[in-house]
């Protein structure tokens, strides 16, 4: 017989990550909240079927993603963003520069990554799912997940480099030797 699960503890542990994942998918705060609620609502209906509590996390992410895809199929309201692959080398991004961006800029960069790679990255970064859990969630072999994570990160690095280059608010400090005080 399946153990009764502690819904309150599960909501507390996972709702924030699920919301962020929903936000990455739906690109809309209201829909992200809705998807998160819907996911837990489905969990309550199917909790008897969940035998292994350790499977709850990937189950929640799988369910939210499935709900999102179901809505997309129904309403066709979320056009795919096509990624234009860059032909140049993967740019080096200084960690200090990367630290200047905010979460929404990072999310916007993630949205530009090609869809097949993006799904793996969203589960990796926003869901903190292991490659095995991502494999189960997306229904693709482990080797494919590794390859998608690797290529997806390359695309994300390019997108972040572009975001940093194009940020009008970015402050680039003068090297010490060229600052007015140093003259």
């Amino acid at each position, binding site marked *: 017989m399946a153990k009764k699960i502690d819904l309150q503890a599960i909501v507390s542990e996972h709702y924030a990550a699920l919301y962020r994942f929903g936000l990455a998918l739906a690109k809309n705060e209201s829909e992200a909240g809705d998807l998160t609620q819907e996911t837990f609502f489905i969990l309550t209906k199917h909790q008897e079927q969940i035998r292994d509590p350790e499977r709850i996390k990937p189950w929640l992410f799988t369910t939210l993603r499935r709900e999102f895809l179901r809505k997309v199929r129904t309403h066709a309201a979320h056009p795919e963003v096509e990624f234009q692959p860059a032909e140049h080398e993967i740019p080096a991004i200084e960690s200090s520069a*990367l630290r200047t961006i905010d979460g*929404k800029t990072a999310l916007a960069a993630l949205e530009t990554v090609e869809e097949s790679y993006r799904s793996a990255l969203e589960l990796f970064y926003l869901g903190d799912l292991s490659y095995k859990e991502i494999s189960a969630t997306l229904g693709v072999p482990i080797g494919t997940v590794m390859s998608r994570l690797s290529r997806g990160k390359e695309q994300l690095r390019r997108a972040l480099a572009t975001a940093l280059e194009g940020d009008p608010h970015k402050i680039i400090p003068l090297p010490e030797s060229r600052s007015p005080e140093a003259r």
Partner: protein
Amino acid sequence: MTREQAKECLSALRASGADDADPTLQEALELARKDSELGSWLAQQREFDNILVEKFASISPPEGLKEIILETLEGTARPIQSWRMGWFALAATIVLAALLLGQKVDLFRGSSRLFRSFRTDALAMVAVKPGPKLDLETPSLETAEAFIAAHDAPRLDQFPQKLQAIDTAGCRVFLWRQHPASLTCFRLPSGNLLHVVVIRADAVGRADMPTGPYSQNGWHLMFQKKAGLLVMWASQAPMEELKQFIET
């Protein structure tokens, strides 16, 4: 295993270190220990991942989302959150009204859960007896509109002409799930109130609504989308009187 193959495997390592003991990744990790170039690449990769995890984690869910989920799971209606004090005193009445109004035949089956939740909450707010709490009691529509505008809450640009000619009871501004909204109440000639609730349409998600007014449990209601706003009209006045005033 080549360096490129190892990089692919190591891309699957989570920044938290949760996969460091994973047997499938040991060969690649071992190679990174021996190969300084690969080791340096892995260190950079981990730093990149760490920063991104931190950046994504800085995106906070809307305040109250967790409580809403828990209340929904417990089957409890959630009262509308208010910017004003005194609202909580009415919570019990509101919850009762919401429970009563939430049980009806669902004319909005295709709508999002969020929209249905808004409809229940908004109805609960206006159904309070003897009337909803108002932030400003005024017979002047102009004064009510100025008050709503001063609080940056959404409002209708223009009410139907016949409504503009009658007195208001007043208005209030409130937050529904962190989204500003307004309520304007009109005094109809029959003595009944007509409530107009306005919120940004994107705050309530997808809304498949009946077209025109409909009746539910002694209330006559109508939902409209106008210029990015969702407008709910609600009254217990006779339908004929209501139609007269809300038709443009």
